Structures are given as C-alpha cells and as structure tokens.
C-alpha cells in the first residue's frame, strides 16, 4: 500500500492518477520526513478556490504539468463564503461597468461548461409605499434594470419586468403589505464548493496532481527566483517539497501572506484591502424568489433560496484581522435582518441556523468606501513587479468571472514556460456537465428517494451513476445520510473515494451534509462512522474525534447568531453532540 509519504516523494504528473483519495493515501501515523517530488512540475498552483482550481484545470488541459495544493478543502475560503452567484454584477454597474460586462460574458460560458451546477434565480426588487416618491423610485429602478438588460443576453438572462402590487404579492405573499410595486431581474446561482471540486477533479483527470489539506509553508528561493515550495499535510503533519518553473499564488485574501513567504517583499506588489462579507442562513427555503432589500445605509442586500435553506447577504466592511479567523458580529447580523425584515417580514419567522463570513481579496485603493472598490482583478508577475521571478499572483475578482480570470492567468503562465496550447475551458464541460440527466429514469425501479436523487444529480451531473455505484450494496443505494439536505450515503462514500474527503467539514462542504436545519444533530455521527469505514479519517484518532471536530466547526458558525427558537435547537444539538462524542472525551 502506498503511503502519502511515498506519494510526496514519488508521484509526478506523469504517473497515472486514480483518484484524489488515493493521492491522499493511508497514514501509518509515525513517519515524518522531508522529501521531494522526484520530477519537477511546470507549475505549482497554491489555493483551492475558484481561481486556483480554475487555473490548475486550464493549465492541465493545455498539457502543463501542474501541482495544485489547498490547505483546507476545495472552496473552503473566499469562494465558499461567497453568495454563490454566477451573476452579472448588477451592483457594479454603477461604479464598474467593465466588471459587469466581463461577469455577464463569462457567466454565459460557465453555464455551458457546468450546466448541472447552475440554477436560475429570479430576483424581486420591491418598492415600498413608505418610499417618499414610490412612482419615481420604481421608474428609476426600472431604468437601472433596463441598462442591465443589455448585458442579460450574454448570460441567457431574461429581461426585467415591472410588477404591480397585486402581481408581486401573488408571486410572493410573504412580502410586506407595504409593497407598492416591484421590478424583477434574472440571475444564476451555483454551489461554489461543487464548482471548485469539479475544477479540481478535471485538473486531476487531465494529469495534475491535486492535494487538499496541504499547506505551503515556505518557498524555495534560489538566486532570487522562486523554484519550488515546502509543503505540510495539515492533518497528519507530514512534510515535503515540490519544484516547478512557475509558482502561482491564487490564495485570495491570504495572497499577501503567501507572497511574503518568499521573504523578498513580494507582498507589496499584491497589496489588498480585504472586504469582509457575512451571510445568514435560515432553516428553510422561504421562497423560490430572491428578494432584494435596501439597508439603512442604502446598500442592496438580498434573501435568496439555496437548496433547502435561504441565505441573507451580504455586508461589505474593511477587515484587518487574520483571514483564518473571521468572526460574525452581532451588529452585522442586526444590520442584515433590519433590511430584510422591512420588505420580507415572513423571514423573521425562520430560525437563523448559522452565519458564515468571508473576505473579498479586493485590490487596495485609498479613500473609497468599501462598495466602490473595484471588483476587477489584477494579475501580478512578480518578475516585473520588483521580484522574485518565478512567482505570479492574482488578486481581486469575482466568482462569476473566475473562468475568464483563470484563463488570463493561465495564458501568462503558459507563455512563461513556453506552452502554446490554447485555453479550452470555455467549451470543454466540467466533470458532470456533459449532458442533462433524467432523474426519473435514474431512480426507476430502484429504492432511491426522488428528492435525494435530484440533489445527487445536481451535485454530480453525469457522474451520478458512479456515485450510486459507491453504495455499500444495491439494497443500501437509497439510504439517506442527511435528511435535511437530501444527501445519499453513497454520496458520502463517493466523496471519500473520489473527491478527497478527509474530514466531516470536508464532507459538509462537498455534499451539504450537516448544513441543514438540524446542523448535523441527526446525521453527523453516522457520517463519521462511514468516513471511518472508508478509511478517510487519515490522521484522526477515531470517528469520535472527527465528529467532535465537526461540532466545534458548526458551533463557530452557529454561536454568533443564536436567538429565538434556534437557541432551543442549539441546546438540543449540544446535548446530542456531547452524548455522541463523550466516549472520546474521556478516553
């Protein structure tokens, strides 16, 4: 059996690679040693968000030998903390027209390559009777959306419509009785974690070596040139090194820290002004429409359906702390609830199950308010930006244009290493996105709950047959591992075997298990056992320890927003968590 140590030493991009899971390998728990990937890579991409996985995929498809490393798991940073929208950037139309155009254009491409992962979200922008001039405001809003309509064809969006009070209340009766009229617009949502997983898998299947839970702890710098990285497995703490002709820093808000590892002052060329954004997650899907609301300081925020929950977002505030610890503050929560409550009072009847926070890696600008900072991106070739050579970084940018940004970055890297092959990511579908899957046909004659099968098809597209094949037996193919979010046990096993799931938080991000209304109270203990059975808990002492890690992680995202009925839910959740993990506490 190969150990991950061997993999660190011997695996090169030339070796056939079976799965992320096999790359992660098995642990023997004892050996810790420095070693090298024998063959140098062409490029090492650091960071497993949309830009890192997108760039790694792009390069791998061009035949470049790539190592992709991520210190947590795919999408766990900024990408996963985003609103999950492949949108045109309506908010930027006012300040940053070019960003809106690019986003809309790339949104169209992303729909083509990841059709299974995108879902249409109709937005309602209500105007209230309490507005001093509701007619005028409605006309103004409509004019604004008319400008946006010009971009809509780029992303298969529908043009806006204007709705009367009766029409909008018929569409969404939960809106305030104060509504005067509304304008609709059209955007696209995505599960950002799945997008990153799909890109990482595509990169791997095109020959890249991809490792999650692998942190870059330093650069190898020779004669003023970055020639490689030092690596550490963040779970079993084994270390290694890898060399490449170009190292790509796509670590988002960690970008300055990553560049600083070169100890040459490279971080000055990637100066950021990170913007913190939080989202609140409600225990139920309140509406099939997203509803826009205006905050006290006149910003647009929304409540948006996502799977079985609803998401309220977002804030935008300068942030000065560590990107590894972003706390949600009470005033941020109140700020969002105040705005949403005014237009959509029925949202206040739901429990806020948790809140998540992330950082936009926004480009530094002085004397601008946060909302007016550009959402455009910048690619920095450190060779021409004060050194060192061999390192390129990307800062800024939007999820909705990740593919385009990755293409530009991959162009630069390909040029540096003399690869002429063109970018193929605009046409070549991501894994699972090759064609549509008929859910009814999939479950016909089998005991698979239709709702859960639908979710599996959403997350895996054409690969769903492989997912179902991971079930322990045909009689267990329909076993639901997470009832709140409709996750099959087979999907848990598949995640362990094929997507590099090594912890319960990984699993939650990859599948949504444990992120629903009960926050894992019903499903996490069993899922931990399945992970142990699958041999996925490399480096964790037991399934109880893995379970405990999950509860601690959920508590961090839950404890900032505990109020009302959620307090009762959390009290029970904690009793269950303590009872399920106690054996481990005491041994």
């Amino acid at each position: 059996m190969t150990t991950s140590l061997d993999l660190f030493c011997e695996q090169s991009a030339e070796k056939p690679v079976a799965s992320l899971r096999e790359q992660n390998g098995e642990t023997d728990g004892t050996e810790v040693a420095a070693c090298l990937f024998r063959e140098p890579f062409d490029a090492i991409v650091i960071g497993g968000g949309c830009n890192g996985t997108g760039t790694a995929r792009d390069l791998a498809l061009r035949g470049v030998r790539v190592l992709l490393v991520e210190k947590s798991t795919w999408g766990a940073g900024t990408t996963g903390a985003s609103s999950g929208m492949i949108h045109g950037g309506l908010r930027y139309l006012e300040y940053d027209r070019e960003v809106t155009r690019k986003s809309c254009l790339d949104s169209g491409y992303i729909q083509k390559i990841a059709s299974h992962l995108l879902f249409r979200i109709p937005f309602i922008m209500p105007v209230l009777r309490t507005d001093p001039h509701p007619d005028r405001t409605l006309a103004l809003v409509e004019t604004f959306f008319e400008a946006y309509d010009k971009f809509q064809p780029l992303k298969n969006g529908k043009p806006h419509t204007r709705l009367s009070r009766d029409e909008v209340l018929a569409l969404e009766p939960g809106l305030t009785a104060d509504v005067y009229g509304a304008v609709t617009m059209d955007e696209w949502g995505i599960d950002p974690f799945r997008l990153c997983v799909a890109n990482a898998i595509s990169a791997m299947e095109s020959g890249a070596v991809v490792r999650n839970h692998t942190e870059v702890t330093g650069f190898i710098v020779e004669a003023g040139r970055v020639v490689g990285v030092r690596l550490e497995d963040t779970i079993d703490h084994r270390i290694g090194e890898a060399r490449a002709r170009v190292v790509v820093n796509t670590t988002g808000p960690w970008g300055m820290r990553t560049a600083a590892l070169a100890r040459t002052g490279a971080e000055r060329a990637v100066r950021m002004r990170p913007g913190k954004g939080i989202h609140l997650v409600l225990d139920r899907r309140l509406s099939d429409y997203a509803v826009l609301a205006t905050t006290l300081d006149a910003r647009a925020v929304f409540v948006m359906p996502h799977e079985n929950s609803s998401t309220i977002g977002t804030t935008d505030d300068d942030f000065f702390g560590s990107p590894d610890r972003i706390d949600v503050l009470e005033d941020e929560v109140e700020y969002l609830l105040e705005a949403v409550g005014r237009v959509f009072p029925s949202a206040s009847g739901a429990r806020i199950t948790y809140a998540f926070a992330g950082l936009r890696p926004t480009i530094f600008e002085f004397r601008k308010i946060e909302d007016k900072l550009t959402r455009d991106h910048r690619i920095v070739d450190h060779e021409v930006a004060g050194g060192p050579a061999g390192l390129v970084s990307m800062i800024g940018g939007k999820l909705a244009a990740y593919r385009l940004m990755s293409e530009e970055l991959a162009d630069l890297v390909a040029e540096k290493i003399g690869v002429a092959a063109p970018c193929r990511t605009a046409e070549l579908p991501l894994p699972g996105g090759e064609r549509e899957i008929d859910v009814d046909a999939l479950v016909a004659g089998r005991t698979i709950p239709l709702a859960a099968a639908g979710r599996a098809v959403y997350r895996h597209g054409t690969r769903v047959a492989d997912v179902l094949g991971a079930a322990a037996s045909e009689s267990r193919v329909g076993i639901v591992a997470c009832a709140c979010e409709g996750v099959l046990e087979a999907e848990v096993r598949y995640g362990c075997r094929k997507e590099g799931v090594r912890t319960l938080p990984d699993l939650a991000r990859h599948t949504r298990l444990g992120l629903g209304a009960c926050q894992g109270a019903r499903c996490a203990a069993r899922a931990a056992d399945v992970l142990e059975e699958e041999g996925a808990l490399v480096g964790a002492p037991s399934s109880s320890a893995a379970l405990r890690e999950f509860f601690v992680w959920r508590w961090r995202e839950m404890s900032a927003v505990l109020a009302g009925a959620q307090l009762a839910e959390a009290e029970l959740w904690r009793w269950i968590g303590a009872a399920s993990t106690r054996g481990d506490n005491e041994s």
Partner: protein
Amino acid sequence: MKADVAVIGGGVAGTVAALRARAAGRQVVVLSAGWGASALTSGCVGLAHQAICGPSRTGREAVTALLRTSSAHPYNLVPGVTNALSEAIRFFRAGPASPPLRGASPDDLPLLLADDRGGLRLADLAAESHARGDLRKSHATIGVVDPIGLSWFQAHSVAKGLSRSLAAACSAGVISAAPNVAVVGLDYFRRQSDSLTTATDSARLLDVEGAAARFSAAIGEALALAPVDLLLFPPLIGVDATDAILDRIEAENKVVCAEMVGTSPGPSGLRFQRALEAMLAHAGVPIIRARVSAAPDDCVAALSGGRTRTLARLACGDGAAPKNVEARAFVLASGRYIGGGVEGTRPWAEGVLGFPIAARGEFLERESSAALTRDDPFEAQSLFAAGVRVDAELRPLARDRRPLYANVFAAGDLLAGHDGVVDGSAMGVALLTGHLAGRNAAAI
C-alpha cells in the same frame, strides 16, 4: 379554575413538584405547553458527572466533588444536599405508578451502561430496559444486535467502539475483565424498513399485536448462530410495552437482554415522559395542555423591585378564550430554552413572569448570545447555565436580589448555575429542586 398549587411545566421537575405538593394533600394542576427536554432525554438519571475511567465514586461522592468546584450550582442552595437528594429519589421511586427506574440510592456506584455509539455511560438511575445491561456484572460475550434493514444503526461501528470502550474501562480497573463483543445479525425489520428512519418509528413496530412473538422468534434464530450472555439492542424495544417485550424475549431465549442508552432523542425519552404523566394521573393531578399566555398586568412593573407580593393567578390558553388559573402557590418548571422557560429574545427574560435571567453570577440585559459562549461547544458555556436566580426557598429573585413573589418557586433547568452537558446533573437538579419546590409550595 382554582387549585392550591399550579405547576408550569410537565417535565421531570414539574412532575416531581406536583407529586410532592399532592402528597402533602394539596389540590394541584400542571400547565404544560407541550413536551420539553425530559421527553428528549435518554430517561437515565445522573446526579453529577463522573469520568468513566476515573476513580469509582458513588452518586453522593460525585455530588460532593461537584460542590467543591461549582459554587453557583443549585445543589449549593440546599444544606445537606446529598441527603435531600436521597429523599427526593426515594420519594420519586415510591409511588405505585412511578417509572420502574433501577439503581438505588446515592450511596451506590452508578450503573455502567453502553450507549448506542459504543461509548460507556454512568447512570445513577435508569429504566429497567437499560439497567438490565449493567456492565459491572461480568459477561463473557456481549452481542450487539444488528437489525438488518435499519439504516440508522451501524452495529459494526458500535461493536468496535464498545470493544474499545470496555478495554479502556478494564485497564482503568472499572471492570475486572473486558468481555468479547460480537455482532448478532437480526432479520426482523428487513421488509418493513423503507420508511423507518428513526429509532422511535422502529420501536413502534414492536408494540403491534403479535410482533413480540415474531421478534422473539427472530432473536432465537439469531442466537442459535451466535450465543451470547448479554444481548444489547439499540433503543427500539417498543414504546408502550417495553418491559413486557423484554421479559418475553429473555424468557424464551434464556439470555439477558437490554437496550443501549440513546445518544439522541428516541423512544426512551418518550417512555420516560409517558411514565411521568402516568404518575400524575395516578396521583389525581390534571394536566392542562396550554401555554401560559398572560401574566398579571402588574408583575412586569414590579420587576424593578420593591415589596414582595403574592401572585394570585395566571392566564393560559389562546388569546380568544384565555383561562384564569388561580392558586395559592405556583411552581415554574418550564425548562431553559427547549422548554421555553428562558425566552430566546432580548432583553433576556423568564418566559412566564418576566423574571430577570442571570448568567456568570450577574443579571443579563441585552447581551448577545455569542458573548456568553466559548469556542468549544462542550466546555462549560454561560449561555447554557443561564436561568433565574432563587433564594434558599427556591423563589426567583428580581433585580434587587429579593424574591418578587412570596408564593412563586422555580425548579429544574430554569435555575441558573448548572450546565447539564458539563456537570451531568440536569436530572439530579430537576428531582431535587422539583421535590423542594413542591414541598415549599404546599406549605403556603
């Protein structure tokens, strides 16, 4: 409606309070908005937390140890708390319709039980179906039932975990020898399994007429292949007729059978709650299913302090036709957040009469929940030790630290200063303070 004592809350604390007042000859009524935390427990009673592999302590010794480390704990309200606990337990177990809890007094070592994740659990009192699985008795081979077709129970993981737990308990000297642990496949639920997603759903199947006989026969077939001394089931042996089913399968198969303790809500809690209600019915205490909807107008104004007054009545039921309940004394046993005793909205307040809520020894105003938490959810959390403060008579205090009403008492999870997840005393506190509050209310 009139009564001598009105108890708000029908969980274990409220039930004991009502029974105690009734035993003193009072007319008692229980107002219950619905089942709360008691129905969500495993039905086992612990007096204070003990490490499984720590020194073997009696319940009394564990309580004494807890008193040394936690000065805010409600046990401190009662002089000679261990004797008072003994008395409360004796009272709880004495009635003819009491739940058949096993274990004895705080002077005994607690029962050592397996839980349904393969961990070990200590319980000072436990339902018969759990207590039969006391692992302090020696067993050569323990069988963990694998009910084929029930996806919610992973017998192989549990057996592996139990084996590990027993080995650890053995090397710590808690038990003298670690039994072998085997998995016993049980083919009973296979064809019925499609919709059985919870333990409670599965358990209900065994209450059906004729089910026990078929179940027992299936167990016989399983044991023929793998004989064991003790057969452990996940908690699914019926909801209504558990002990009768157990007696039958033990007699027919000549093996000791027991249920593992549930780590999440299941049939054991339902049985426990039903047993509480049977005790109330037997004692002639009516349960009114209604939420207390209104407190007297003057009580909120009085919360700033001043003269201690007497509460005359509460209104309960829906807004259209609220019912006044007049009583000479009232007991609040409405739980913490699950029961609704502490409202989750701010400013922090007790749910019925608006008493101030205390945490960390201070009354709260509008503090955020987050300010009352720590990073590790299973460490002591002020948020989950919040509740009303009381005087030595268990009367809730207003902000001036004096009781607002001479005739209102509080018991159970509503009391500040104890976090059951950490100190393991939630049931002990409910029994003790329910007993005392009932006694005090009866004396008004």
